[in-house]
């Protein structure tokens, strides 16, 4: 401790780096924990009950309803999309029609008028979200048409329970009663309506997991054919939770990278600190201190400083959910649980300590072995000295433990282990590149003019900054470019390939008998429009090869197929935008056992082969069909296509509606398009129009948000990198000042020295940026090809921005360093004493 009094100048970087690294890990962990905690805490509100039972297309029959009622209080609701019309305009709305028991938990927030009570329970009155009023030019109290009836806007809908359980919304929400729903006549046989039954167990029994399982099993056993999709409040949004977990897992690696980078900064700082302490250590040894005492003295200092850094990092991490919730309250699907979470902080602290040991033990070990003879011979180099194998092994063990913690904390350990290896390889690659740059500069050192020679000598010579720059900035820059390029490729795919060929509209719930009239209306308004249609039903896969769906173990890529209901159709001929890769299509008048054609990739994921049996619950009936063919589908065309296509004889008799797509000829004016949509809405009030560009826009916005989140984390890595670089430059500053003084003594002007310094930093920044662009391009290309299955698009702008950013960062650090170098007085550096 006494030794620490002599000053810890230069160790600010030590504290800063460890604080930022720990903050990154703690913040990411805390945010994920907040999200999970929010799901758990708000589970009942999110589900809207203790359990929810969902049916698609059909309402629960009397027996089913009685079975549900026997379990506790039940609230019934219907969810669907429809068109709201008023004043010659129409807009897509997400409707929820509820009974009098709604809501079982929580309350509906009516934003306007204040104290409105429960206006939606009144027949003919609806609550709507503000954007709908804006779109239709309405205000509270006005009326609008939905389906076959006029309704009054009774107020503005705010937050409501079970919002998360509803599907992704394409339009503003509307809340109405089941009585109002009846008036609309929107519910027809085969209409795409989701009927949800929320159940509240009596006497707060829903608290118990056993009671929940019991209720679930009771319904499943009693109604094995019902096709209920069942959720309970303990896991209210499984798919959202899984998506969040996968995202967290990815971003945690960025956090780990940030921490390791911070560790490098810590290592650099401790090395230059120990170099300054050389004489003091030698003096201690002359006075009788042992190597282990010296090690203890400096280890205590390192631990104290690391503790300060870790404490700062943990504080930032603990506050992250609260800060995030404040900044992005509107963008989040649920309110985050903002109180600090212990485990992520403990993990982050442990990771911080292990990182500190990984990067500090070895330099400290080396320093503790300094010979007392350095006092006698100032020029004696300690370069040749190496700490014993023990210190190196200790450092390695800490590194291994760090990765072990990361792997142990992960659900997908093989992927985590591979990514961990990838991080190590990336660091080594950058280190090797830095070494290569140093060697190359050393070879090219005779290059004229002299400013180049000086810069190259500095890059190529001992004490070169090459490795510091490449390692500290390479990863952050690479991440930023990779994110930029992937986003560019995905956006290009959405905008170019998808929008260009996609239909302009989907029309849901066209009555089979109205299809001809519907097409006529389109042709009358836009004669060259292309219209396509297909019968549309929804069903859930309940068994594959006789194994019930809930007993089938699937990877994350396939899980979604079994997690809810899927659209399905029947047709006599092979649907467009798909080709048969195995098996045969059924004949036109096929009358045999039910057959199904499957998407090739999904069939592989589910382990389905030709001839296997799949059981699908459609409209409360289990249909078992044999896989007759496998198709390769071009989903990006957005043409009508289905994972499962059945032989007509299987589904013809089931009540269903028709899905229609509309492709408008190029150059169709917005006016003509609006007129057509309005004409359809007027003539077919029960049909719902979904504009493809709206969905694509929503997808683009979501993609943008995800990419921003990753970019922010990558930016954090870059910030730590800049701190590491600044630390490395600061550590070598005395040497740079000495060289500048020497050059001045030998006749170099300040201009020449400035040019040489900036050239050195600029060259290193440029080389690092080029490497970052190359590595990021390769990574982005590989991910686009194999993970996202989209065409890779290189963005010169993203690359140029990276080069610019790298130069800006390195030159800023360099300019600061140069300014201080130039102001150095000659005499202190040149005197012998």
């Amino acid at each position, binding site marked *: 401790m006494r030794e620490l009094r002599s000053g810890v100048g230069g160790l600010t970087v030590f504290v800063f780096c460890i604080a930022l690294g720990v903050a990154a890990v703690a913040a990411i962990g805390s945010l994920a924990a907040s999200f999970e905690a929010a799901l758990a805490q708000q589970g009942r509100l999110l589900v809207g009950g203790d359990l929810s039972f969902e049916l698609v297309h059909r309402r629960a029959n009397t027996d089913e309803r009685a079975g549900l009622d026997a379990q506790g209080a039940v609230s019934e609701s219907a969810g669907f999309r429809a068109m709201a019309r008023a004043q010659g305009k129409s807009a897509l709305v997400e409707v929820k029609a509820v009974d009098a028991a709604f809501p079982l938990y929580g309350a509906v927030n009516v934003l306007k008028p204040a104290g409105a009570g429960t206006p939606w329970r009144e027949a003919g009155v609806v609550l709507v979200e503000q954007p709908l009023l804006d779109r239709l030019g309405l205000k509270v109290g006005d009326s609008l048409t939905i389906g076959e009836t006029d309704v009054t806007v009774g107020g503005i809908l705010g937050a409501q329970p079970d919002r998360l359980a509803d599907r992704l919304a394409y339009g503003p929400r509307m809340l109405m009663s089941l009585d109002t729903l009846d008036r609309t006549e929107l519910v027809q046989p085969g209409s795409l309506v989701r009927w949800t039954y929320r159940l509240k167990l009596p006497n707060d029994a829903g608290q118990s997991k056993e009671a929940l399982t019991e209720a679930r099993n009771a319904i499943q056993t009693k109604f094995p054919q019902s096709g209920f999709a069942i959720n309970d409040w303990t896991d209210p949004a499984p798919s959202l939770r899984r998506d969040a977990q996968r995202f967290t897992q990815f971003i945690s690696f960025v956090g780990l990278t940030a921490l390791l980078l911070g560790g490098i900064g810590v290592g650099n700082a401790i090395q230059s600190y120990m170099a300054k302490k050389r004489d003091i250590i030698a003096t201690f040894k002359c006075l009788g201190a042992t190597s282990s005492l010296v090690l203890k003295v400096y280890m205590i200092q390192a631990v104290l400083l690391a503790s300060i850094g870790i404490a700062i990092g943990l504080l930032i991490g603990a506050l992250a959910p609260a800060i995030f919730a404040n900044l992005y309250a509107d963008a989040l699907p649920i309110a985050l649980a903002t109180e600090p979470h212990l485990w992520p902080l403990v993990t982050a602290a442990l990771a911080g300590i292990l990182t500190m040991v990984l990067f500090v033990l070895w330099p400290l070990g080396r320093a503790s072995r300094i010979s007392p003879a350095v006092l006698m011979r100032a020029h004696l180099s300690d370069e040749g000295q190496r700490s014993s194998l023990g210190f190196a092994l200790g450092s390695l063990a800490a590194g291994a433990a760090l990765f072990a913690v990361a792997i142990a904390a992960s659900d997908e350990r093989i992927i985590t282990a591979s990514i961990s290896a990838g991080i190590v390889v990336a660091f080594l690659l950058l280190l090797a590149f830095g070494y290569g740059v140093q060697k190359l500069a050393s070879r090219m050192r005779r290059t004229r003019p*002299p400013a180049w*020679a000086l810069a190259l*000598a500095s890059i190529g010579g*001992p004490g070169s900054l090459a490795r510091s720059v490449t390692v500290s900035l390479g990863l952050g820059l690479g991440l930023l470019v990779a994110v930029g390029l992937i986003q560019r490729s995905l956006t290009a795919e959405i905008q170019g390939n998808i929008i260009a060929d996609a239909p302009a509209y989907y029309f849901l719930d066209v009555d089979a008998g109205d299809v001809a009239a519907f097409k006529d209306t389109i042709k009358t308004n836009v004669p060259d429009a292309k219209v396509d249609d297909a019968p549309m039903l929804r069903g859930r896969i309940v068994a594959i090869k006789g194994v019930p769906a809930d007993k089938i173990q699937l990877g994350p890529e396939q899980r979604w197929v079994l997690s809810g209901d899927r659209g399905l159709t029947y047709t006599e001929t092979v649907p467009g935008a798909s080709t048969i890769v195995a098996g045969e299509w059924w004949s036109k008048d096929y009358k045999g056992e039910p057959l199904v054609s499957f998407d090739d990739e999904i069939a592989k994921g589910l382990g389905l082969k030709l001839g296997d049996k799949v059981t699908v619950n459609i409209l409360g009936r289990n249909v078992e069909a044999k896989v007759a063919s496998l198709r390769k589908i071009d989903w990006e065309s957005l043409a009508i296509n289905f994972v499962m296509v059945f032989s007509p004889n299987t589904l013809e008799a089931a009540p269903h509606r028709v899905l229609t797509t509309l492709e408008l000829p190029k150059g169709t004016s917005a006016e003509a398009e609006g007129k057509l949509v309005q004409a359809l809405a007027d003539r077919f009030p029960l049909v719902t129009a979904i504009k493809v560009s709206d969905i694509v826009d929503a997808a683009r916005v979501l993609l943008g948000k995800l990419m921003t989140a990753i970019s922010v984390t990558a930016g954090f890595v870059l910030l730590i990198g800049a701190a590491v670089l600044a630390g490395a430059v600061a550590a070598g500053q005395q040497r740079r000042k000495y060289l500048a003084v*020497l*050059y*001045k003594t030998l*006749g170099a002007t300040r201009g*020449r020295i400035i040019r040489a310094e900036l050239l050195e930093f600029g060259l290193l920044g440029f080389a690092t940026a080029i490497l970052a662009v190359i590595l990021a391009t390769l990574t982005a290309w590989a991910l686009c090809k194999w993970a996202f299955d989209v065409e890779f698009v290189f963005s010169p702008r993203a690359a140029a921005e990276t080069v610019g950013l790298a130069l800006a960062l390195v030159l800023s650090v360099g300019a600061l360093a140069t300014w201080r170098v130039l102001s150095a007085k000659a005499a202190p550096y040149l005197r012998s004493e």
Partner: protein
Amino acid sequence: MDQTLKNAKATSAIKLEDVHVTLPSRAGPVTILRGVDLDVPTGDAVAIVGPSGSGKSTLLMVMAGLERATEGRVCVVGADYAGLDEDALAKLRAANIGIVFQSFHLVPTMTAIENVALPLEFLDDGEAFAKARDALSEVGLSHRETHFPGQLSGGEQQRVAIARALSTRPSLILADEPTGNLDLSTGEQVMDLLFTLKERTAATLLLITHDHNLAKRCDRIVSVADGRIVTPAKKRARAS
């Protein structure tokens, strides 16, 4: 190369008039030189002797333009330092002054030949490396051209430093304890070399030394104590 500066001819290579140097320190201003007058004619070899802390090295720094005089006039190779900024002083040094230090001060990231070529490159001399090679040959180190300072012995490093100081054929050589870090025999060899080259180039030599035997090889000896010249410069018989 700056011909105006290079051709500056003066009867006095160094002329100091009432030079004072006061430097700031934590304990307050410290006066190091207290009114130094010195006139070194062109071509002479002058030794400056004196105890540690007497101001010898500061005197050399002032002559080299690396330290500014707080008061007084400094004229070196015909240039009055009062009118020159830092860059002009750097150019003046490159063209006219070669400096040899006790600690050699070679650029550690550069090889021997690169070190020697450096001042020539600062003068934008297109034949910098050819001349550097000749200079290294003059000090007998042709075989060490591509070695880094860390790979050379102390004596070799000082010979490289001498080659570097003389590579531009300066009219003034300033040497600050050039044998201070060398053993006796190597020191003698290095000084023989320095004097030989000084004679060959007809340069003026100002040598700071503790070694009276070495001082005796100069034309004159000037004693400095407490920031003042205590023994007026007096002409001695040429030692060699």
